[in-house]
């Protein structure tokens, strides 16, 4: 398979976007990506869209067709990809494979979610669709409760503390405050997290990523075309994906996401690097405990040591590995289908030296990690200059 590069990126501000629906959010991100790449709509050969639930948030399915139409791109092929919270990451992978295989030379892949039209209860129920409807959600499991069950077990087995989990939120808000696209622009303190209202013990409000509207888009091109389009191509060094049981109660371990472990290992092998060679990583912090699991399962630290590493600042901006410089899902926001693409946007900006106040020194190798549900899907990409 041939080499593929990200040649343009774009996104809109994540947050409560009352004036904008799926079309407006997608157009904003898509047009910025095309501008950034310096190409026109005529150059695009296919469109991939990550979107978890247009149907249950705004009653709209057939989202690929919707966006191709809105952007005036017909008759190119338009494909919507769904894997719960990893819809964006998986859409990126599908787009990458389409170019790497030789089927297309230039595609656009975007991710979009419009979550704020419904009331919180309905949003919670819809997000619960990422879990096992018949055997988890039916019995009262909400998405936060599943990660809470993981957190309780992690605390029991490794002594991870609520303060260590809170540090993840504090770090990500610090980064988000330096990202003009992030939903939350304010820094917070450990006490703020500890005092926030309980959602599913031990997780509190500020341990949880918010409900967000937003879109992000990137342009992918084959090697020859990429070199013609830009001086700063960001190469896809690895693309990997793995699955695990849908329900948390069917996992072999309650404190490790095997899909992340498998996808991560495959990605490092493809790229020919070790975990510690990664400078920047956008990992899936849907809840603070999820980032702790991610840094362990990706092999940045040993299993059980994630909490201490966060506490010690290992993953702070310009720490050993800068994790979630975008603000992560926590502070940048989590418009579900868009997150995986936003991660690619952030890594690309960092590798190109265009990350402004949150720029990581000597950013050479970046990793994006996107998880679906409580760990049933994991997608890992490694990018570099």
């Amino acid at each position, binding site marked *: 398979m041939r080499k593929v590069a990200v040649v343009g990126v774009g996104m809109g501000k994540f947050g409560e976007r009352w004036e904008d629906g799926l079309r407006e959010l997608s157009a904003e991100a898509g047009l910025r990506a095309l501008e950034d790449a310096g190409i026109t709509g005529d150059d695009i050969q296919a469109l991939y869209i990550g979107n978890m639930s247009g149907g*249950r948030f705004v009653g709209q399915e057939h989202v690929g067709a919707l966006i191709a139409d809105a952007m005036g791109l017909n008759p190119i092929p338009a494909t919507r990809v769904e894997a719960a919270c990893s819809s964006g990451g998986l859409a990126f992978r599908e787009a990458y494979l389409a170019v790497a295989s030789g089927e297309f030379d230039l595609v656009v892949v975007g991710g979009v979610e419009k979550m704020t039209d419904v009331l919180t*209860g*309905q949003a*919670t*129920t819809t997000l*619960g669709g990422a879990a*096992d409807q*018949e*055997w*988890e*959600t*039916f*019995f*009262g*499991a*909400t998405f*936060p*409760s599943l990660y*809470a*069950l*993981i*957190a*309780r*077990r992690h605390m*029991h087995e490794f002594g991870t503390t609520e303060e260590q989990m809170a540090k993840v939120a504090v770090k990500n808000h610090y980064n988000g405050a330096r990202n003009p696209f992030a939903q939350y622009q304010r820094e917070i303190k450990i006490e703020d997290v500890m005092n926030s*209202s*309980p*959602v*599913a*013990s*031990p*997780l509190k409000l500020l341990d949880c990523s918010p409900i967000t509207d937003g879109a992000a888009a990137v342009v992918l091109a084959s090697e020859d075309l990429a070199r013609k389009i830009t001086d700063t191509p960001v190469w896809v060094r690895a693309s990997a994906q793995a699955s695990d049981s849908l*329900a*948390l*109660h*069917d996992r072999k371990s*309650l404190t490790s996401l095997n899909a992340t472990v498998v996808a991560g290992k495959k990605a490092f092998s493809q790229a020919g690097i070790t975990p510690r060679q990664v400078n920047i990583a956008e990992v899936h912090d849907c809840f603070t405990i999820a980032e702790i699991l991610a840094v362990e399962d990706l092999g940045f630290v040993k299993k059980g040591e994630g909490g201490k590493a966060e506490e010690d600042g290992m993953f702070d901006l310009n720490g050993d590995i800068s994790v979630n410089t975008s603000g992560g899902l926590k502070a940048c926001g989590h418009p579900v289908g868009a997150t995986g693409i936003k991660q690619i946007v952030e890594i690309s900006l960092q590798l190109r030296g265009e990350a402004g106040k949150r720029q990581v020194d000597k950013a050479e190798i970046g990793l994006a990690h996107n998880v679906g549900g409580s760990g049933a899907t994991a997608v890992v990409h490694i990018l570099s200059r």
Partner: protein
Amino acid sequence: MPHRKTIPGVWRRYPQRYRLKGNRCETCGEYFFPPRVVCPNCRRKGKLVDYEFSGNGKIESFTIVYTPPDGMEMQAPYVLALVRLEEGPLVTAQIVDVDKDEVDIGMPVKLVFRRISEDRDDGVINYGYKFTPV
């Protein structure tokens, strides 16, 4: 308005949800709840037979849920747990009739039959399994 669960969808699972009816693979000996359509270990070589679980188990993890899904508002806050059934499988279920401060990992529990949710005030009532300390 909350999304209504489908009637055939809930009816189909009564034996599982009312009586913990699962299955067991005679080829590899593993117990499954919920019942499997294919043994994950043996796949087509597996021979699955019905098995009704005893309902005895231990809490492996738990959380207190303060923000319930639609239809369960009156029950919140409730204890949700992962219960390890004595035959092996892990299930997700509420723990009821317990002091929230006393719930802990390792607590032995047993099966009870309770209302899980209802489809507003004019739809079907969904019954199923919960657990209570022994």
